[in-house]
C-alpha cells in the first residue's frame, strides 16, 4: 500500500466522531483513493470509548488499524488520546483536544482522572499537537463543532486543497449548520 495513510478518530460516544469519519471518507474517495472506514454502532456508542478507522491507499484490505499503524490519531478527548496512543506509528502525529470528560470509574470515585496527562503524552516523545479545541468550537458557535475544528487541524497535514475539504463538508452537514462548520474548520486550519 503506497502513499496511503491510516487515520484513527477516537473519542467518547456522542462527540460526533462519525461525522468526522464520513467527511474524511467521502473526501478521500473523491480524491481517487481506495478507502475503508470502520465505525462503532450500538451499545458502545452510549458514552463509551469509541474509535473509528479511516484507511486509504491504492488498495486497502483490512478495515481496522492496529497498534503501531496509525499515521494520525485525531482525539476528541484527552484520556482517549492517551488510551489509543499505542496505535500511533512511531513517526505518526497525534492531534488531540485537551477537553476532559470523566469516565464512570472517575465519576464514581473508583479511580482518579490521570493527572498531568498532557505532559505525560509529550514525554513519550511522540509528535503530539494538544489543542484547546473546545474553546475554538465555542468561538465558532457550538461546542459540538469540535469535530470539525479537529478536521481543520488535520487538513493542514494532508495534501488536499482546502476547497475540496469545504465542498465535502458542505454536502455532509445539515444546511443550517454549514456556516458554523465552515468557521470551525477555518479556526482549526489556522492553528
Amino acid at each position, binding site marked *: 500500500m503506497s502513499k496511503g495513510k491510516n487515520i484513527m478518530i477516537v473519542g*467518547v*460516544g*456522542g462527540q460526533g466522531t462519525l461525522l468526522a469519519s464520513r467527511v474524511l*471518507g*467521502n473526501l478521500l*474517495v473523491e480524491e481517487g483513493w*481506495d*478507502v*475503508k*472506514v*470502520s*465505525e*462503532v*454502532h*450500538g*451499545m*458502545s*456508542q*452510549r*458514552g*463509551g*470509548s469509541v474509535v473509528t478507522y479511516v484507511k486509504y491507499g491504492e488498495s*486497502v*484490505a*483490512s*478495515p*481496522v488499524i*492496529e*497498534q*503501531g*499503524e496509525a499515521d494520525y490519531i485525531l482525539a476528541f478527548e484527552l*484520556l*482517549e488520546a*492517551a*488510551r489509543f*496512543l*499505542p*496505535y*500511533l*506509528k*512511531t513517526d505518526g502525529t497525534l492531534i488531540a483536544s485537551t477537553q476532559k*470528560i*470523566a*469516565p*464512570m*470509574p*472517575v*465519576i*464514581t*470515585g*473508583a479511580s*482518579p*482522572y*490521570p493527572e498531568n496527562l498532557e505532559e*505525560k*503524552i509529550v514525554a*513519550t*516523545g*511522540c509528535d503530539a499537537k494538544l489543542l484547546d479545541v473546545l474553546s475554538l468550537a465555542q468561538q465558532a458557535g457550538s*461546542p459540538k463543532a469540535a469535530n470539525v475544528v479537529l478536521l481543520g487541524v488535520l487538513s493542514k497535514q494532508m495534501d488536499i486543497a482546502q476547497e475540496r475539504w469545504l465542498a465535502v463538508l458542505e454536502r455532509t452537514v445539515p444546511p443550517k449548520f454549514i456556516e458554523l462548520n465552515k468557521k470551525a474548520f477555518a479556526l482549526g486550519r489556522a492553528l
Partner: protein
Amino acid sequence: MKQLLLGNHAVARGAYEAGCAFVSSYPGTPSTEVTEYISQFSEVYSEWAPNEKVAMEAALGASIGGARSLTAMKHVGLNVAADPLFTASYTGVNGGMVIVVADDPGMHSSQNEQDSRHYAIGAKLLMLEPSDSKECLEFTKAAFELSEKFDTPVFLRLSTRISHSQSKVELSPWQQVALREYTKNPAKYVMMPGNAKGRHVVVEERQQKLAAWSEYCDLNQITWGDRSIGIITSGAAYQYAKEALPNASFLKLGVVNPLPSRLITEFARQVETLYVIEELDPVIEQHCKALGLAVKGKECFSLLGEYSQRTIAKGILGKEAQSVSLSEPLPVRPPAMCPGCPHRGMFYTLHKMGLTVFGDIGCYTLGATPPLSAMDTTVCMGASISAMHGFQKARGQESAGKSVAVIGDSTFIHSGITGLIDITYNKGISTVIVSDNSITGMTGHQDNPTTGKTITGEPTYQVSIEAVCQAAGVKRVTVVDPNDLPRLEQVLTTELAIAEPSVIITRRPCILLKGVQKHPPYRIDKDQCKGCRACMKLGCPAIVWGADKKAAIDSTLCVGCDLCTQMCAFGAIHPQEEKQA
C-alpha cells in the same frame, strides 16, 4: 461512479437492485441498518416485526406468495427465528428468500459470541459470506438468484466489522421482478410428517447439488502467490490475512456452507503449510481435518473475539507491533446511560430498595454497572420476566416481595408477553417493570408496535402495554414517571407487598428522541454543596467530583432532567438561569 457504503447499506442496496419486494426484520446490532436503509426505497415493502421469529415467518410467507423476500437479524435473533428456519429449509421457497444474519465477534453489542455458521450446517442451507461492501451488494443479488435456482432460503452471513465498515461499491438500477405465480402445493408447504418425510429427501438431494455447485462457483476464489503459505479464509478474516500476508496463496471462500471439499483438497495439495483463518469456531478447520488434510488453525488463532492483521501476523510470523504508550494504567470508559436517561431514576430506586433485579436486553442493561449496580441477571430477550418467575417459584413466596423484572417496551413486545402469561397462569405474584421509553433505544431509535408509527414513520395502531398486561390477567397495572422518585418508590413498595401479579410501567421518552424537550443545564452552588456525594449515586455522566471534594455539573452534558435536585438535601443544585437569592 463508485461511492462509500456501509456493509449493511450495501446489502440493502443489493436487495433493492435484485427486485426484493418484501422485508421484515427486528432490529439488532450489528444488523439493524440493513432494514433501516431498505425502508428508504419506496419500491420495497418493509416493516419492523415484533420479533425475529415473526419476521422470518413473514418473509417465508411473502416468498411462498411469489415475492423476493428478505429478513435481517443479529446472531442471537436467529435463535429466536430458529423454529421456522429449520422447516423453511424443508418447504423451500417460491420467490427468492434471503436471511441476513450478522455475527458479533468481539461482542461489541451482544450477550454472546455464537457462530451462526452452525445454523447453516444444522438447517442444511446455503450460506454466503462477503468480505467487504462490494461483495455485500453482489452476494445479496447472487443469493436471490441461488435461492430460486435451488429452491431454498439462502443465508448471507455478516459480522460486525463487515456490517459497520464502509468501502467502495458501484450501484446499478432497480430491477423489477414479477411476482411469481402461487400454486397450492400442500406436499411442499404443509409440513406434517407424511409430507415432511418427502421434503427431507428433497433437502438431502439439494445438499448434494449445492455441494457440487460450490466446487465450481465463482464466489470461491483462489489467488496464487507464494506457495509456502496457503490460507483458507472468508469474510473479515480474509481482509486481515490479506493485509498481514499479501504475498501468500489464498483460497477465499464466499460459500461457507456447504464447503467445497474438492477445491479445498486441490488447494491444500499445492501449498507447503496450510492455515485456516476464521473468526469464532473452527468450522472450516474441522471440515479440512475430516478430509484428512494437515492444517493449522485454532492452535495459532483464538476462538475468542475479533481478529486483525496483527493477530494474524503474530499467529503466523510471530511479529510484534512497535508502538509508544504511557506506563500507567488508565481508567476504562465503559458505556453509560446518557445524562437525562429515563432509566436512571428507576435503577437508582431499585438499588436503594435493595431488590433482586432480573434484567433484559437494551440500553437499560447498563443498570447493572456501578454505581447503580441494580441488576442480578441478563440472559436474552424476554428472559427477565420468565427467569424471575422461576426464581420466585424456587425460593418461595417471600422472594416475590424482594425481586422485580425490568424489561423495555420493545423487548416486552418481542418476547416478554409470554413470560407475563406464565406468571398469571401459574399463580405467580411477581412485580414486573416495563420501562417504556417510547422507542427501541439501544439499536438507534427504531419504532415498534407501542410507538404508534411504522418503519417509515406513518401513524398506525398503537399497541397499549397496559391493555396487553390486563388481557394477560394482570389486574394491577400502574403508570409512573420514573423521574418522580418518591412516587416510584411508593408504588414499588405497594406492589411488592401485594400477593398478586402487578406491572409498573415507568413511562418517559428516551432523552435522545427527536422532539423530547431538553432543559437548560443545572449548576451546583459550591457554598451550598456539603460534599455528601448523594448526587453521585445517580451515576450521571454530567455530574463530576471535583478536586475541592464537591460535585460540579458539566454544562455541555447536562440536559436539566432534574433528577439530581431530588437527591440533594441541601438545595445546592439549581437551574442555571435561576439567580441565587
